[in-house]
């Protein structure tokens, strides 16, 4: 307990530095901003801003990036409730009951319920991160090369199971990522691989232009094809902001359940905000005594998912901070940001840079508090943003993508890499292949290769060690069980149901 408190106070000391407070605010504000704006999400924003974080101290950089992620969860729900436009994928569920509440003239309480549930979840999730992260990091220090390799296999399998759509395609996308990750100088021999003669590729393909292309430009090209519907705003009922007793009585427990569901799913590989919100909605509907009323403005259907997506967003930092394992594309970007700062992700980060880790954890809570303050009084302002026409917005996104890609290494080459991956990403969207597993493979591929090669050297080329070490075996068995489970018809149906709930 003492360690827990001293960790938190160290975190508070870091997070409360004026500059870090400012960066936390900037991140949360930016997150809300892109959360409200449809057509640009936290992923693209973080990718574009990565080059800038290079100029910041590591703690400030991570604090700001994290703020964008959870800030977007708040912003996304505002437009979901008021205009039935989910700013983010994770707020799709809120368009169901949240928008219906607004239609019934209860927009104010709906927004307040969303903000309060999110804040509650954010507070609990911060504590969960603070409690679990050190323990996990301690265990991870005893991991051998074999354990690490198997854990990464588990992480990737988890990402596949949690992804929506075809499992085969998701696995294939991981391998595409691993192949792309192999580009560059081989660490052991110094031989350049797959560089096509470009000296720029000797250091590997930079993660930032890939992310800008896949998540920024590709999305933008796909968005431009969709017909734009002008947002219809619900402006009535904003005056009465405070939820009534019924909202508290029913929404409160739902928020608690959502927090639990979200926290659990956030930690799992492949989890995060999106899955958490869908799963929480499914849970709420299942345990409800009046499931037929869901979709007509039931407060549980809003409070649960809103809590869940925020909790999931935050607990997904746990595997990233403690094991260096990204559980989703956003965390892959966070790892990219750490690497830019010269920090090797892994369990040693917790012991070597406690101020960085704890500063970030505490900043999440501060950021959540700021978000309630930014959001509730300024709702009127945020709502106006929905009117920002995409035809102007997308041009700005293009320009920022260009400058972001250039800024990472001050090299025009990276701008062209971004274009190439933009086109590639667009093709992937057309073929319904999720780019997130690719990002994970790209980050994890080189680490897996290193562990595998070293492990095989140590074992004299005997692969059976992966199956005889207890930890490694456990990870592989869980991974195999997960894969088998997706193949089972019953779970397959369930999975489909969870993801299609909102359609």
């Amino acid at each position: 307990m003492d360690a827990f408190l001293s960790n938190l106070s160290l975190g508070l000391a870091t997070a409360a530095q004026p500059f870090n407070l400012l960066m936390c605010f900037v991140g949360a504000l930016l997150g809300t901003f892109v959360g409200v704006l449809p057509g640009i999400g936290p992923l693209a924003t973080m990718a574009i801003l990565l080059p800038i974080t290079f100029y910041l101290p590591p703690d400030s950089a991570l604090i700001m990036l994290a703020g964008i992620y959870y800030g977007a969860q708040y912003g996304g729900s505002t437009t979901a409730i008021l205009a039935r436009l989910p700013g983010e994928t994770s707020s799709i569920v809120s368009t169901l009951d949240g928008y219906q509440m607004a239609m019934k003239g209860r927009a104010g309480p709906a927004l307040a319920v969303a903000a309060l549930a999110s804040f509650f979840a954010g507070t609990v999730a911060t504590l969960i991160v603070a409690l679990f992260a050190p323990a996990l990091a301690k265990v991870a220090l005893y991991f051998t090369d074999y354990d690490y390799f198997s854990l990464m296999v588990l992480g990737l399998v988890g990402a596949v199971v949690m992804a929506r759509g075809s499992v085969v395609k998701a696995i294939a996308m991981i391998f595409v990522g691993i192949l792309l990750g192999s580009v560059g100088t081989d660490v052991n021999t110094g031989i350049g691989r797959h560089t096509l003669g470009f000296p720029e590729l000797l250091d590997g393909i930079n993660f930032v232009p890939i992310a800008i292309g896949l998540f920024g430009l590709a999305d933008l090209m796909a968005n431009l094809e969709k017909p734009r519907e002008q947002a219809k705003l619900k402006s009535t009922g904003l005056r009465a902001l405070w939820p009534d007793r019924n909202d508290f009585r029913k929404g409160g427990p739902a928020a608690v359940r959502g927090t639990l569901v979200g926290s659990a799913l956030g930690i799992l590989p492949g989890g995060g905000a999106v899955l958490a919100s869908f799963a929480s909605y499914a849970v709420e509907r299942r345990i409800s005594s009046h499931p037929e009323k869901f979709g007509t403005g039931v407060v549980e259907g809003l409070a649960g998912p809103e809590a869940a997506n925020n909790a999931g967003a935050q607990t997904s930092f746990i595997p990233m901070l403690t094991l260096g394992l990204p559980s989703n594309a956003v965390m892959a970007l966070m790892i990219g940001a750490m690497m830019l700062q010269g920090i090797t992700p892994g369990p040693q980060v917790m012991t070597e840079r406690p101020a960085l880790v704890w500063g970030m954890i505490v900043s999440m809570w501060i950021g959540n508090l700021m978000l309630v303050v930014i959001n509730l009084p300024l709702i009127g302002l945020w709502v106006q943003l929905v009117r920002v026409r995409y035809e102007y917005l997308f041009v700005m996104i293009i320009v920022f993508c260009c400058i972001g890609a250039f800024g990472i290494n001050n090299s025009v080459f990276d701008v062209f890499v971004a274009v190439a991956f933009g086109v590639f990403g667009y093709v992937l969207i057309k073929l319904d292949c999720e780019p997130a597993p690719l990002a994970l493979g790209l980050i994890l591929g080189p680490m897996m290769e290193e562990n595998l090669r070293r492990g095989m050297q140590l074992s004299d080329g005997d692969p059976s060690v992966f199956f005889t070490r207890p930890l490694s075996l456990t990870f592989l068995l869980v991974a195999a069980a997960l894969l088998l489970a997706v193949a089972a018809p019953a779970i397959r149906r369930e999975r489909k149901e969870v993801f299609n709930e909102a359609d």
Partner: protein
Amino acid sequence: MEATIKGKQDFLSGLLFIAIALAFIVNGRGLPLGTAVNMGPGYIPLGAALILAVLGTVCLVRGLVHAGAGVEPVSWRPFLLVPLAVVAFGISLDWLGLVAAIFLAVFVGRAAIPRAPLLPTLALAVGLSALSVALFYYGFKLPVSVWPRFL
């Protein structure tokens, strides 16, 4: 051809995966493979590419056998003009400078939407240039020139 492919999306995904795998296999021919004990630089990429090829084949066959989703048509305007805008930025940045590169990107990119009005686009280009010069040139000190080199 149309009638025999039941799931176009799966079929084409399979083709794409196989093509990527082949590209890596062909391009990685010269890399020493090494042995399982002492893996060379070519070992893992070849392994990954082979697995990808198998997965691609599974996708392809599934597309042939199972009825599945088709592929939505590509709308060519954004597909061509958005990348072109970024390429224009990349080509011009070094010798025409930041402002001209942004103007090019804005005007080419803006054409991705039909009937783009001129005046708001111009205002957007001016605004974005001013913002970028302030933020990235003066703020973050990106090593670019603001105006064309030859001026």
